[in-house]
Each structure stands twice: as C-alpha cells, then as structure tokens.
C-alpha cells in the first residue's frame, strides 16, 4: 500500500508535465489537458492499489488522460457544440507522433511563460501545468485566496485560447528572449521560497525552492546548450545548499559571515560548483545568472568570510553591472567593496543609490551595517529602524532587530543629534 502511494507520488512528480503536454498537443487545449491529467491521476489513485502499479506508469497515465480528454470533449460537445471550436488552439496540422516528448514539455513551458501573460499569471500557470501543484497549493504559496488564484489561472488559460497564444516553442531568433522569460519565472518561484514575504509565514519555503530547482533541472535537460539555464540551476543549488544554515533555531536570519559552513549541503555545493566550472570552460560570455552563480561559487568555496576572495567578487559584480546596471546590483557590489576598500568607500557608493532604493529594506540594512562598522551608532540605529519597517520577511526582521539592539551608546561626534 505504501509502495503504491509512493509510486503515485513519484509518477505525479515525474510524469505530470509529460501527461499535460501530451494531451495539450493532441487536443490543442490547456483546459482539456489540465482536466484530463487531473482525472488520470485520480483514476490511478483508485486503480493502482487494486490492480497494481502498471509497468510503465507514464504511458498508462498518458493513455488514461487521452481517454479522459475524449470523454471530456464528448460531454462538452453535447453541452455546447459551438464552443468546441473556440476551445481549440490553432492546430490545423496533423497530430505528430508522440516520440518527441521532451520537446512537448518545452512547448508547454514556453506557452505558460508567454510574454503576453503577466508575470503573476506565468508563475501560476507554470506551477499548475508544468509543476502539477493544485490551485490551493499555489494560492497558499503566494498568500492569496484560492478563488483569486483560480481566477488568475482561468483568465490566463482563456487569454491563451481566445487571443490564440500559440502552443509551440519559439523560433530560433526569439529563443534567447523567451528562454530568459522562462528563467525569470523559475527564479521568481525560487526567490519566493528562499525569502518568503509576509508575517506569520515561514521565512523559508523549501517546497517552493525544491519545485523551482526541479523545474529548472527540467529546462536545463531540455535545453542543455543554454548557458543561462545552467547558470540559474547552479545559482539555485548554491543557494539551496545553505538553506538550513540561513535561519537559526530561534527563527532569525543568519548572514553569510555568521553561517555554520559545516552545515552547508556538500552534494548541492559540489553540483553547483561543477556547473559553474562547466560554464567557465565553455568560454562563452556569461549572462546574469551565470555571473550570480559564479559569485555564489566564490562565497561557498571559502572556508570563512575572511578567506573569501572579495576582489574576485567585486570583479564579478563589475561584470554584472555591465549587463544589468540596476541599483540593486550596485548595492550588492557595494557590500563586496566594503570588504576590499572598507566601509567608508562602500557607504559613498550606497548613498548614491538613495533615490531609487529609499523604499527597499536591504538598502537601509546595508547602510546600517556600514555605519555600525564606521562607529556612527546613531545613524546606524536610524537606518536599522527604517530597514525593520520595510522588511517583509520574519527571519530578516528578527535579525535586524537584534543587530539594532546590539548597538552601543551613541558615539562621539554624534552627540549633537537633537532627536534620539
């Protein structure tokens, strides 16, 4: 019984996207594919304990889903003949033989991450169609009502159908931009797991980071020659490796410098480092994710924060700034600059970012740390206060509060401040 349960869970994890993709391709509709895949798995839950697990669960599920899809279409046709045509994709070509399964899953991913859909819609649709999460699970992950999430997914599917978003992988000339769009969705899912927002919410959501890693592995397998897919996977692995060390027993965020490096996951680190080396060896100019992965590789190669090759980190950030001159990248670069040139030089760079980043908690947290190191206690306190006010993650708020409360009494040179 337990074996059957595990077989069903395993099949859901491994086969869901394949089943949805196969049905979507054959019947030209995401609605039908989603319904039919869900029904096929529900049938497996009933049948497998009685009949035994089929020798090829994936094939069994796909065949069952196809039958369910045909049933579904018959039912719908009886209900409304006219609607049927509108429910189909642009699918005039003959159904292709089901030999190119990998390509079909890729098609599914590209459709769910189409640029004409909002980022929110893409994330929800990808988690549902490719990731196999239920609407309720996705709603919980993003702290919205289940009905809201259901509407978001329905609206996205309706737009795909009515506006005729094509069910196919993009043309070669559009591929880089479209792949970037897919990776952005996966990175967003990972980040929501890595630094979950909202009070009363677990600070880290390993279910989401695991799902993001799984999907990124899939994209990497489907597009082995894409350097950024490899880079994003490496970045996720090197971040995930530090997960348990990132939050203390008391639920406080532990910064990199204070983490117990022995608690990092050696297997994930090894895989991440291997991917980074692979990309370096490829000799192709790296994209954003590859550079971020390389930065993480430098951090995770050092035995402690003092032995970190900070000049290398600054050099990598310089490379990143050229690709992405955003203020957040400049802020992260400044943190590395502090380790090479000292807090004063770093603060000068951080202060230049006030205008774009005044509402971003990390800007104030960074200022606070630099001011603390310079001995400007009062200014540091003000900056911590602002950071705490803006931080959305419970573990981060706890950490910042402790740091603020550890500040000593106001130091010399600042006793003229009128407002304590």
């Amino acid at each position, binding site marked *: 019984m337990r074996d059957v349960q595990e077989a069903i869970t395993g099949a859901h994890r491994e086969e869901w996207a394949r089943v949805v993709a196969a049905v979507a391709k054959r019947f030209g509709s995401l609605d039908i594919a989603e319904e039919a895949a869900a029904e096929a798995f529900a049938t497996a839950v009933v049948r497998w304990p009685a009949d035994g697990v089929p020798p090829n669960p994936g094939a069994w599920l796909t065949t069952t889903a196809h039958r369910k899809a045909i049933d579904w279409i018959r039912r719908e046709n009886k209900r409304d003949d006219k609607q049927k045509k509108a429910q189909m994709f642009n699918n005039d070509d003959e159904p292709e033989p089901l030999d190119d399964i990998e390509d079909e899953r890729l098609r599914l991913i590209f459709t769910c991450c*189409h640029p*004409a859909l909002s980022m929110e819609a893409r994330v929800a649709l990808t988690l549902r169609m490719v990731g196999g999460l239920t609407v309720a699970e996705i709603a919980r992950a993003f702290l919205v009502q289940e009905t809201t999430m259901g509407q978001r997914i329905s609206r996205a599917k309706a737009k795909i159908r*009515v506006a*005729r978003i094509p069910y196919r992988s993009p043309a070669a000339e559009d591929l880089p931009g479209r792949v970037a769009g897919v990776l952005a969705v996966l990175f967003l899912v990972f980040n929501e797991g890595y630094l979950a927002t909202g009070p009363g919410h677990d600070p880290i959501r390993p279910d989401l980071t695991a799902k993001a890693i799984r999907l990124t592995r899939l994209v990497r397998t489907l597009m082995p020659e894409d350097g950024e897919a490899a880079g994003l996977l490496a970045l996720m692995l090197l971040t995930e490796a530090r997960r348990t060390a990132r939050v203390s027993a008391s639920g406080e965020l532990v910064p990199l410098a204070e983490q117990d490096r022995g608690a990092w996951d050696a297997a994930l680190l090894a895989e991440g480092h291997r991917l980074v080396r692979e990309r370096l060896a490829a000799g192709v100019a790296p994209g954003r994710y590859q550079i971020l992965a390389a930065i993480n590789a430098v951090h995770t190669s050092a035995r402690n924060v003092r032995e970190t090759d900070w000049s290398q980190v600054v050099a990598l950030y310089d490379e990143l700034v050229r690709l992405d001159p955003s203020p957040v990248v400049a802020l992260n670069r400044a943190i590395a600059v502090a380790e090479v040139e000292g807090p004063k030089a770093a603060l000068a760079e951080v202060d230049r970012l006030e205008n774009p980043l005044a509402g971003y908690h990390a800007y104030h947290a960074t200022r606070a740390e630099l001011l603390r190191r310079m001995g400007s206690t009062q200014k540091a306190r003000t900056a911590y206060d602002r950071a705490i006010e803006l931080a959305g993650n419970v573990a981060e708020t706890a950490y910042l509060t402790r740091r603020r409360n550890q500040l000593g009494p106001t130091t010399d040179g600042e006793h003229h401040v009128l407002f304590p």
Partner: protein
Amino acid sequence: MKYLISVIDDGTGVSTRTEQEAVDAFNERLQAQGHWVFAGGLGSPDTATVIDNRGGEAIVMDRPFVESKEYLVGFWIVEATDLDVALKLAAAGSKSCNRRVEVRPFLSDPA
C-alpha cells in the same frame, strides 16, 4: 485569425510627416505580406457623439464615451495566424506611428 491593433494617443496630437511616411511603409508591408485587412485614423475625441438607444428614445450626447487623457486615434485590423505574429506586427506598427498600441483578438473569424 483577425486582431485589432488600436493606436493610443496620450496628447501628442496629429502625426508628423515622418510618422505618416513610416505608417505608409508599414501599411505597404502589411499588404505585401497578406496581413492587411483594414486600417484607419480617427477624428479627435472632441468630434465624438455618444448615442444610447436602449430606453426607447435615442439619447444623444456631445462627448466621447470615456473622458480620458488617452484615447484611440486609429487602428489596424490584421490577419495573423496567432498572437506571436500579431504581436510582431503590433511592435512594428507602434514603431511606425510612434505611439502605444493595444492588441486584441476578434472573437470569431468573420471570413
């Protein structure tokens, strides 16, 4: 499959000579590639009249149906196999007329 590409003006007013030439070139391209269905420019919202004849007597109002700083100044109706093709045409159209555009599918093919 037909798509409406609406051209949105936010107060830039009449198009310049360069814009008109670019639009002409884009229209020729639409025709040459078989995407052309129809296109046109519209009078300003000042020239709009709203009619409501749902209540038995037609009520005539001397105004656009929505007062807004942004308004429709023109449109293309194009034939495209799917949204990807329509979005590429819309991107070229936006560049040619130097304005934002909105793409919407027609519900059924009146062909």
